[in-house]
């Protein structure tokens, strides 16, 4: 009883549609941000893609023929699940960090992005998976025949006269291919998760579980009476068979027997290493926390799906009477017992199992195919605008290729194998990745050469001992190869290599392939070295998890020529399309500092390059992405080169190396040893030259005027710095450094615009840096420039910051030294001023002495009169002057003068006046003519010296008692006469001397009486000021004169000085005060 061709086809079609709707729904939910896939249950179900139609049909077949050892295929993964929290989680973390797209990507990235390794892994995956896909096609076609009751290999449709014949297998392959393309290759980005695909796979996993449980419950509880009923009945009916099925090893002997250990080992590896398993577990993982739950959910799934396998197998034998066709008991048992509904359920379960596996597998492998076989060729061409289109179609082509290779294997090998045995060939192939994979995660020494050698040897062994013999059953390969070995060499028989007889095909193949694989991997890894690219990856695969970020990873690469963001974007656009490229770069830009042109700093460039690679890797795989970016850079004339590691490789736990600390220490020793800047500068530069293998170093410091001058110049090939010196070409950089207070450096002078550094380049200088000498937040004091002739790219962020900290220390020293110098300078200046002052004082004192000596020591004696005069200078030399000239027995001239100012000049003029007066005293007779001639003679000198003289000149004749006098602007002398209360003022018209060249002085005469006291004085007397600001004034002079008129002349003079000092309340006079007194006796 069966459903017929049309309804079977319809059911399949409807079911396919349902799955497609599930996928669409999941995709829709993802777009709207409410993912249904993002939970541990869907994740666990998607891992159950492990259970293919092999599980669905093959397990029952195996259980019915060789017995319970089929369970090993599921116990292995269940056991592996123990390790997921370590291994799987680590794989997921690494993959997410590096945008890994497939297992080939994962392995090749770890071993230095080796394209050969990626291609090798891909090749193994394609060939290895061939039998596995053939298995699915075989299972589905057979189940389709069973369910539709249709016999034969082809479906013939009546079509316009002739019959159109389509093999079912081909139809199936075609449908599956189209399906896979729709689910997995709509977009290029493969590292992105395919939620629709995952949802479909999870749904199918659910269907196959329900379906198998349904059939199991039906068989166990409907046809029979529970587990023990089936077991007891079977034991009674077939006791021998019972023994064989429920013990291990009893059925061994034939080539189909696989020892349980081999199955366990292969399945343990396969759960992680099959491309589709890696895809759903690692690539499609949305959250690594799901792993913990999947660790027990997935084994539970395996447990449930296998619970009824044994009862179904036994029930099938019981109801059909033999174990022939046991592979399809799941369908045939319900059919033969007339339950077509259950049979359809079983058919759908099997279809799900097969379709899910084929879709995921083909998508995973086509990604590998594109990234590791096609891309290495494509990257050799110049990127074109149509590349994204080409790539996506190549990926689609890959899916067809993978499925049709499986179909081809099915055609050739076809029915000669049981399902399980076909699957084991694929498991063996996947096992070849195991050593390289575990080594990638845990063995630091594992290297590219080892991985390639190991995998290649293992693959060749597998090919020779397993895949080729599998063809022999179909007659493709001559039986002789198997029976007597190639060219009759028995030792090289594929099934008994080196005479290893008595082992089954799989254990034999596993043993030799693992021996060569692990041996090759370990030996090459130990013997050969890792290259730079590999070491970098090891840090990411292993280093990330040990000592995570314990030390800052320092940049060890630089781009020899800067590339802009825009250039990277246009490169990415050529492979992943404009939109994707823009989206990627937006995410990159988000949290980074960009300069005014929208570019990143030179130190950031390697990160940008890595980001570009990572973005491309999401679509084309890491190895191809690396090749694309490298070829792009080389077209640009730029390349990644190792940063010259100034600090060698020894790093302390902080971000400083021992060398860096040593240099800092040395520098501070130099700076603190002396206050001589020149020594500090010379020693500091010498230290830098020695420690960092620099070739020239120059320190420029600003002087007081802000001009920069070279203060120290150290280096091997020194020449005097002049306009022709190569250093002059760096001047603009120094000025820039001074202006923006930042270090400027050129890591490769050859990359600078041509003509900028002709002489510098001629000098052999390849890199240079200019660092401002300044303290934090203060204007720069100068620039330190360092040059290297040997190492381009030596100025890393670290090195610049070290140099900056040294210049900072040096700036501190410069500031201190300059402060000390300034203070010293000030002190010396003050000292000199004091010294000078003292010298002037002494000179002035001498001048004063001389000046005082000009004044008459005492008044000449004349009968009938008493006379006296005194001058007291206020400070040093003054301009007061008085004198007496005795003409004869009765006549005397007397004068009082005041030269304006108190300078030496005034004193000199005074001495000139004295000389002139002495000279003309005999030739002139009256007072006015004395003044007149004096004025004429002094005019020039006085004008030149800008001085004036006031003078009162008087002539007294004792016989006539007459006083004739003339005045040149001097204070009026006073006469105190007995009986008169007021004083008589002596006044005569006349200008101050030195104002006009010729002046006429009025001469007046007064007759003096007995007892008259004449007082001649200078303005120091009347202008003496009391602390209250009051002046002594004429009135006080007059009244004081009145009160002391009776005293002798000397006492009168004394009393005046006393009165003035009393008045001013200060013993020191404010101005010179000269007093001359004449008393008529």
């Amino acid at each position, binding site marked *: 009883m069966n459903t017929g061709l049309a309804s079977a086809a319809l059911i399949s079609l409807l079911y396919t549609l349902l799955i497609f709707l599930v996928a669409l729904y999941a995709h829709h939910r993802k777009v709207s941000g409410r993912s249904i896939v993002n939970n541990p249950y869907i994740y666990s179900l998607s891992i159950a893609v492990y259970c293919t139609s092999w599980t669905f049909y093959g397990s029952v077949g195996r259980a019915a023929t060789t017995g*319970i050892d089929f369970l090993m295929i599921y116990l292995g993964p269940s056991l592996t699940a123990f390790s997921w*929290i370590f291994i799987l989680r680590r794989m997921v973390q690494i993959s997410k960090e590096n945008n890994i797209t497939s297992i080939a990507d994962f392995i090749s990235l770890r071993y230095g992005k080796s394209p050969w390794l990626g291609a090798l892994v891909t090749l193994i995956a394609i060939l290895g998976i061939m039998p596995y896909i053939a298995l699915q096609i075989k299972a589905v076609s057979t189940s389709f025949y069973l369910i539709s009751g249709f016999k034969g290999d082809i479906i013939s449709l009546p079509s316009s006269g002739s019959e159109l014949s389509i093999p079912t297998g081909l139809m199936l392959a075609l449908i599956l291919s189209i399906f896979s393309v729709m689910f997995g290759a709509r977009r290029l980005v493969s590292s992105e998760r395919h939620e629709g695909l995952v949802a479909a796979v999870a749904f199918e996993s659910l269907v196959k579980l329900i379906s198998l449980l349904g059939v199991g419950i039906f068989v166990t509880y409907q046809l029979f009476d529970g587990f023990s009923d089936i077991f007891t009945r079977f034991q009674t009916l077939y006791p021998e068979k019972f023994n064989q099925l*429920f013990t291990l*090893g009893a059925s061994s002997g034939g080539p189909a027997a696989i020892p349980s250990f081999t199955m366990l080992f292969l399945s343990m590896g396969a759960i992680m290493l099959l491309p589709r398993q890696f895809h759903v577990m690692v690539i499609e993982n949305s959250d690594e926390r799901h792993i913990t739950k999947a660790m027990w959910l997935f084994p539970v799934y395996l447990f449930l799906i296998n619970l009824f396998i044994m009862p179904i197998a036994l029930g099938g034998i019981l109801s059909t009477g033999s174990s022939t066709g046991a592979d399809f008991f799941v369908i045939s048992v319900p059919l033969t017992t007339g339950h077509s509904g259950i049979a359809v359920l079983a058919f759908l379960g099997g279809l799900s199992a097969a379709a899910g596996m084929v879709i995921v597998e083909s998508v995973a492998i086509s990604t590998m195919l594109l990234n590791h076989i096609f891309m290495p060729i494509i990257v050799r061409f110049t990127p074109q605008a149509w590349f994204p289109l080409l790539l996506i179609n190549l990926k689609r082509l890959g899916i067809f290729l993978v499925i049709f290779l499986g179909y081809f294997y099915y055609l050739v090998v076809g029915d000669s194998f049981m399902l399980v045995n076909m699957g084991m060939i694929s498991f063996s192939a996947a096992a070849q990745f195991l050593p390289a994979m575990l080594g990638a995660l845990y063995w630091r020494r594992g290297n590219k050469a080892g991985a390639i050698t190991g995998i290649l040897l293992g693959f060749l062994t597998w090919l020779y001992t397993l895949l080729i013999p599998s063809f022999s059953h179909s007659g493709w390969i001559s039986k002789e190869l198997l029976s007597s070995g190639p060219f009759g060499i028995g030792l090289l028989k594929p099934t008994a290599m080196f005479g290893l007889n008595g082992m089954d095909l799989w254990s034999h193949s596993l043993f030799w392939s693992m021996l060569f694989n692990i041996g090759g991997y370990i030996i090459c890894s130990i013997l050969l070295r890792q290259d730079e690219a590999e070491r970098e990856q090891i840090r990411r695969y292993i280093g990330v998890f040990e000592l995570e970020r314990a030390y800052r990873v320092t940049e060890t690469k630089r781009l020899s020529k800067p590339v802009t963001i825009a250039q990277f974007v246009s490169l990415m656009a050529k492979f992943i399309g404009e939109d994707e490229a823009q989206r990627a770069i937006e995410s990159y830009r988000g949290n980074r500092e960009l300069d005014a042109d929208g570019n990143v700093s030179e130190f950031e460039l390697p990160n940008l390059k890595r980001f570009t690679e990572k973005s491309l890797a999401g679509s084309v795989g890491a190895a191809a992405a690396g090749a694309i970016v490298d070829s792009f850079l080389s077209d640009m004339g730029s390349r990644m080169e190792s940063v010259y590691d100034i600090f060698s490789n020894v790093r302390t736990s902080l971000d400083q190396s021992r060398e860096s600390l040593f240099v800092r220490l040395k520098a501070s020793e130099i700076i603190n040893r002396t206050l001589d800047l020149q020594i500090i500068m010379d020693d500091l530069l010498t230290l830098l030259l020695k420690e960092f293998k620099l070739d020239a170093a120059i320190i420029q410091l600003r002087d007081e005027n802000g001009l920069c001058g070279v203060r120290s110049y150290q280096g091997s090939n020194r020449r005097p710095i002049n306009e022709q010196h190569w250093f002059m070409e760096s001047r603009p950089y120094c000025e820039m450094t001074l202006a923006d207070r930042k270090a400027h450096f050129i890591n490769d002078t050859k990359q600078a615009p041509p003509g900028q550094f002709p002489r510098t380049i001629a000098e052999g200088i390849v890199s240079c840096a200019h660092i401002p000498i300044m303290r934090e937040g203060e204007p720069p004091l100068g620039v330190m420039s360092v040059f290297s002739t040997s190492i381009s790219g030596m100025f890393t962020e670290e090195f610049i910051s070290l140099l900056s900290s040294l210049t900072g220390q040096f700036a501190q020293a410069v500031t201190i030294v300059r402060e000390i110098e300034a203070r010293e300078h000030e002190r010396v200046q003050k000292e000199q001023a004091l010294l000078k002052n003292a010298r002037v004082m002494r000179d002035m004192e001498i001048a004063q002495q001389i000046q005082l000596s000009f004044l008459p020591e005492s008044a000449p004696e004349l009968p009938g009169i008493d006379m006296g005069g005194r001058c007291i200078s206020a400070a040093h030399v003054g301009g007061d002057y008085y004198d007496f000239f005795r003409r004869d027995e009765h006549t005397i001239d007397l004068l009082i003068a005041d030269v304006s100012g108190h300078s030496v000049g005034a004193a000199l003029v005074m001495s000139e006046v004295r000389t002139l007066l002495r000279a003309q005293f005999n030739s002139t007779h009256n007072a006015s003519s004395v003044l007149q001639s004096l004025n004429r003679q002094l005019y020039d000198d006085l004008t030149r010296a800008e001085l004036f003289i006031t003078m009162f000149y008087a002539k007294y004749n004792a016989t006539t008692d007459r006083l004739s006098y003339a005045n040149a602007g001097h204070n009026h002398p006073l006469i105190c006469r007995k009986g008169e209360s007021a004083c008589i003022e002596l006044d005569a018209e006349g200008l101050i001397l030195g104002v006009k060249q010729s002046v006429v002085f009025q001469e007046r005469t007064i007759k003096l009486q007995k007892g008259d006291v004449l007082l001649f004085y200078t303005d120091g007397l009347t202008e003496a000021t009391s602390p209250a600001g009051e002046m002594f004034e004429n009135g006080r002079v007059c009244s004081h004169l009145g009160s002391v008129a009776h005293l002798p002349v000397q006492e009168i003079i004394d009393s005046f000085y006393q009165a003035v000092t009393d008045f001013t309340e200060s013993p020191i006079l404010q101005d010179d005060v000269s007093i001359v007194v004449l008393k008529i006796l």
Partner: protein
Amino acid sequence: MKISRVRQRVMHRLQLRESWVIFFVLGIIMLNFPFLHIFNKSDTLFGFPLLFLYFTLGWAFSIFVIYLFTLASRQPTDNHSKTLQP
């Protein structure tokens, strides 16, 4: 009171990386020659073949152990021992 303390101690032991390795190795041993040999007999127990029973119950038990481990890994860990966090 006492049960919760025992539970805590068990959880604490399960957080150790060593415990995982031990159970993993134990699983491999249980699925290999000496142990399988013990149960590799055609006898039945309560109507169930011995080996079938061994596999089924052993498997269920191992899943339970993994479940316990995942429970333990969610517990707060102390920093004195090497913990599960890779």
